[in-house]
């Protein structure tokens, strides 16, 4: 028997129940975002009035946001690795860095949305505006939840209530954060690059 098998939780399936439940949740989130992306694509190019995607989407700006979110995923796995090896000093630094990069992404989204509204694109303007804001807004709401979750963990780490024994909590937070990242990878391609 390997060390890994020896360390497996004593559940009927040999996996941590919290982690299994969270993967099931992520599976349901796949269906949620799948439906939103489907709706965006089905209505793509069917707006009868502008502004149209090519009029207002700012690729350089969104590329920087994408880079920011990808780096936040790196910070997250570094935080998990630090917590697992009991290095709480770096665990706290990486957790806060992840939350900070998430906040920067949200700031970018606020700037983008504000710019679009000033250019005449709102939820009610056309099909593009409706599907774009619902899709990216739902993703932004998920990022917001993730930032709050990360800051909560960071505060618990500052209080000394987070350590290697709670590594699974950090890992589950990481699963959520990486899922938010992979959803953005798809949105960036489907919405911004494929116009």
């Amino acid at each position, binding site marked *: 028997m390997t060390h890994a098998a020896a360390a*497996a939780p004593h559940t009927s*399936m040999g996996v941590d129940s919290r*982690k*299994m439940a969270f993967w099931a949740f992520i599976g349901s989130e*796949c269906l949620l975002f799948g439906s939103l992306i489907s709706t965006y694509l*089905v209505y793509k190019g069917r707006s009868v009035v502008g502004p149209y995607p090519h009029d207002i989407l700012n690729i350089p700006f969104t590329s920087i946001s994408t880079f920011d979110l990808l780096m936040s995923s790196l910070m997250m796995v*570094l935080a998990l690795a630090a917590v697992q090896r009991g290095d709480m000093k770096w665990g706290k630094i990486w957790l806060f860095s992840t939350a900070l990069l998430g906040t920067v992404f949200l700031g970018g989204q606020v700037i983008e949305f504000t710019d679009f509204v000033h250019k005449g694109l709102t939820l009610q303007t056309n099909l593009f505006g409706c599907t774009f804001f619902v899709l990216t807004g739902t993703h932004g709401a998920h990022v917001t939840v993730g930032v709050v979750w990360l800051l909560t963990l960071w505060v618990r780490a500052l209080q000394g209530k987070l350590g290697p024994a709670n590594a699974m909590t950090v890992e589950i937070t990481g699963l959520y954060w*990486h899922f938010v990242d992979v959803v953005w990878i798809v949105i960036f391609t489907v919405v911004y*690059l494929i116009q």
Partner: protein
Amino acid sequence: MSAPPGRAGGGGATLPTTGGTREHGHPTVGVYLRVAAALVILTVLEVGVFYVPAFHPVLVPVLLVLSAVKFALVVMFYMHLSADSRVFSFLFGAPLVLAVVVLVALLFLFLGALTLRGAAGAG
């Protein structure tokens, strides 16, 4: 029930580093950094392809492949699906496949036809 060969159980303590993975099956920091570098390079390629007119005839398939590779890298290494229990792969993969099937079915239903140059039928 023991974990499948080469795959760790869903939880457990961290044990000493061996090769490219730690004993609980998670990649090392070095692997995380290499994956991050690959993700940045792929993103630069995506944006580069978008701006190069020569790629426009094959823009959609190229972008979809690059995006799929980035997606897989994050899921396999950052979310640890490559080393974790296959139960998690099923819980994530089954709804993902269902979502993709529904997406493709809706595109065929509403757009009539799909081409490699994108949803050209959308107008």
